[in-house]
């Protein structure tokens, strides 16, 4: 046994070294490949932060301005890098501030390991200062959570945490560590990653019988249709997916989290599904004969009314999570498995085909949608700018190569509809939870996760004000994030619903904003406000060519609506163009 030391290089498995729980934690994080941590200190996590002081060269800690910002940054990092996001927070209020982000990561299957400090073990359950029952609060919004009260548990628990967060259907894990366990010294015998938990089956053995049945359905189909979601991206199966799409010749449409899994301009990519998705993919869902759902979960925003959803179609559902199969839409053939494994098998089993007439039907609908909606949105004749034209301009300048991080609201739907994604892991948005305030911190994390890519956050005037304190994080860390605020002076999406469904009773959606550019300036971030179309291209170019972060506020039409729209409670074929 060696003498205690502050930091250590991973010891050989046979040696043991006396370390504190905090040092063991940091060594474990490094062993798992962590390079960046988003966090905020406090009393109950001080020993970990104290240990972190000596790990400056190995672990880059980003001090956020609010724990919600920290966890959204962790999500952004995970989404662009494909790695596990790591977040630190203290006990009590620090931990509870993570809840929104945990719920968001849970529903969007984002791999995270959150570490929260907790009061001393002997104080648990006594209403001690800043004690909260974090385990129970976070149980419904984590894939797994665990409270550590003894330092000797730390290496194994962290190994499990990473394994669970990233394997199978990924998700957030929270580890709550009492202060005594952070301080306690113990014999650390090195770190062993976890690759098996007795009670946990991340991946099934793929059953070829289902592959054969699925292939038979697909080969006999006249009007097959592919719906793809984030499962393709989470499974790193983009190549396998492309091969399947191209051999099968089947038109494919995406959920917002699936965007970018194949390039937006791929000839078989027929657009976006769901409430504000494209016209053709929605209507033709109720026309196809075989529906092939890949790594998507038939969210109600995608399906609209379930009892009128694709009733005519035979359904093939590929998913890694058996709980998703038959949950909302009954499948004819369930293909349970990791799509990285199932897709190549399916591709091998199907015939090479093309469906020119069927594909043309999608194109007919696209034409109608262009005439009724898209043309006016992208080439408006009104004096005021539209959200769509801003996205279109941005696209042309970035050539579809940027990572687009969106907040929640009209601008989100417009960005997802009109942004071009040439690459996977380019669309970072809060899909399942729809969390306003997501974009600014997520964009910070997205840039750390993909440092060589341009990251542009598209945010509404409402959502920006939910987490705008993270401008401080941008200032201090020097991260390069381009921020576009699409200011319609309304909580636009709610206003749209009030206009369409509540007889224009605009109840508390008229929101005032500060001088965003001055606010950015207060954080030493350059910015600009434009309200004239003539300035748009120049301003976007200025934003993109300015080194470091930049805030561009664009005044857009106050009362513009996002169409098409499947009204709540309607079927996908009742999608409205106006």
């Amino acid at each position, binding site marked *: 046994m060696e003498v205690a030391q502050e930091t250590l290089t991973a010891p050989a498995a046979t040696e043991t070294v006396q370390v504190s729980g905090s040092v063991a934690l940091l060594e474990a994080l490094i062993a798992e490949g962590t390079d960046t941590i988003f966090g905020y200190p406090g009393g109950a996590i001080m020993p970990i932060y104290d240990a972190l002081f000596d790990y400056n060269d190995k672990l880059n800690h980003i001090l956020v301005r609010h724990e919600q910002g920290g966890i959204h940054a962790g999500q952004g990092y995970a989404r662009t890098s494909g790695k596990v996001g790591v977040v630190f927070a203290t006990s009590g209020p620090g931990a509870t501030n993570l809840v929104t982000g945990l719920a968001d990561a849970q529903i969007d299957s984002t791999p995270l390991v959150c570490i929260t400090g907790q009061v001393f073990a002997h104080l648990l359950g006594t209403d001690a200062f800043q004690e909260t029952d974090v385990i129970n609060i976070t149980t419904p919004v984590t894939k797994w959570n*665990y*409270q550590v009260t003894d330092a000797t548990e730390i290496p194994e628990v962290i190994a499990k945490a990473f394994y669970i967060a990233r394997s199978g259907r990924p998700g957030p894990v929270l580890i709550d560590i009492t202060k005594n366990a952070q301080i306690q010294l113990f014999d650390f015998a090195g770190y062993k990653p976890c*690759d098996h938990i007795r*009670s946990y089956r991340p991946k*099934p053995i793929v*059953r070829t019988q289902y592959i054969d049945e699925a292939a038979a359905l697909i080969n006999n189909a006249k009007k097959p249709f592919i719906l793809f979601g984030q499962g393709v991206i989470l499974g790193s199966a983009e190549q396998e997916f492309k091969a399947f799409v191209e051999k099968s010749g089947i038109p494919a449409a995406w959920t917002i989290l699936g965007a970018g899994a194949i390039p937006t301009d791929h000839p078989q990519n027929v657009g976006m599904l769901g409430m504000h998705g494209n016209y053709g993919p929605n209507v033709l869902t109720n026309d196809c004969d075989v529906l092939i759902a890949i790594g998507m979960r038939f969210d109600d925003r995608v399906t609209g009314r379930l009892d009128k959803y694709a009733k005519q179609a035979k359904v093939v559902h590929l998913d890694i999570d058996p*709980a998703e199969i*038959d949950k909302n839409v*009954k499948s004819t053939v369930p293909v349970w498995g990791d799509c990285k494994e199932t897709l190549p098998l399916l591709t091998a089993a199907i015939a090479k085909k093309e469906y020119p007439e069927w594909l043309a039907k999608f194109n007919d609908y696209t034409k109608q949608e262009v005439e009724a909606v898209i043309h006016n949105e992208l080439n408006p004749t009104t004096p005021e700018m539209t959200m769509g034209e801003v996205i279109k301009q941005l696209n042309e300048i970035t050539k579809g190569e940027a990572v687009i991080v969106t907040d929640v609201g009209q601008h989100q739907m417009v960005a997802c509809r009109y942004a071009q994604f040439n690459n996977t892991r380019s669309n970072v948005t809060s899909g399942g939870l729809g969390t306003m305030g997501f974009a600014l911190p997520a964009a910070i994390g997205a840039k750390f996760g993909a440092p060589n890519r341009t990251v542009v956050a598209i945010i509404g005037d409402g959502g920006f004000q939910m987490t705008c304190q993270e401008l401080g994080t941008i200032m201090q860390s020097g991260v390069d994030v381009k921020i576009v605020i699409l200011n319609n002076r309304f909580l636009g999406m709610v206003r749209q619903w009030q206009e369409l469904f509540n007889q224009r009773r605009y109840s508390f959606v008229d929101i005032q904003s500060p001088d965003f550019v001055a606010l950015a300036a207060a954080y030493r971030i350059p910015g600009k406000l434009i309200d004239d179309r003539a300035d748009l291209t120049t301003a976007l170019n200025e934003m993109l060519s300015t080194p470091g972060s930049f805030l561009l506020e664009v005044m857009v039409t106050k009362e513009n609506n996002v169409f098409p729209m499947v009204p709540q409670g309607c079927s996908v074929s009742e999608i409205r163009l106006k």
Partner: protein
Amino acid sequence: MSEPEEKQEFNITVYTENQIGLLSRIAIIFTRRKINIDSLNTSPSEIDSIHRFNIVINESEDVVRKLTRQIEKQVEVLKVYYHTNEDVIWQELALYKVSTDVIAEKVSVERLLRENGARAVVIRKDYTVFETTGHREETDNLINILQPYGLIEFVRSARVAIIKDSDGFNRKLREFERLEPGEDVIENEYLNQGQKVFTM
């Protein structure tokens, strides 16, 4: 599966690691869907370190199937099965406390015990405790009989159920312990068997 399914009693059997917090993880799956748990029993199983939950709910099979998948998704849950009452042998235990004076004076105790399959567990000067085991109607029956004689206290356990068509969990567990378990454990029974699911 097109016509809405009838609700009926289902016995859900869950094999889990013995882990703090798991009860609330499992309970949340029911409360979140506003499903009432009629009976819940948890205890160590025949296998060291493995716990067994017996949960009874009154729901349609479709709902039960979805619930069991959500339960099985929990990291520390090894396996979940569900069965109708016909597929299991089940018992509940009931204890009845009555005044010894009253019961000795007014009731033919012997008849009472014989006819209801009851046993006296404790006989004290002040009170006597009887026990029966059986289905709900059977244990209810004795309440009705004793109520007129001043039943002081009554308690009934959760249901425990043994699955008729089961080879037990020992062999399955060994599969779970392997890094590369065989199809038997890893395969998804409900996908494999369509509607006829969760047999052991």
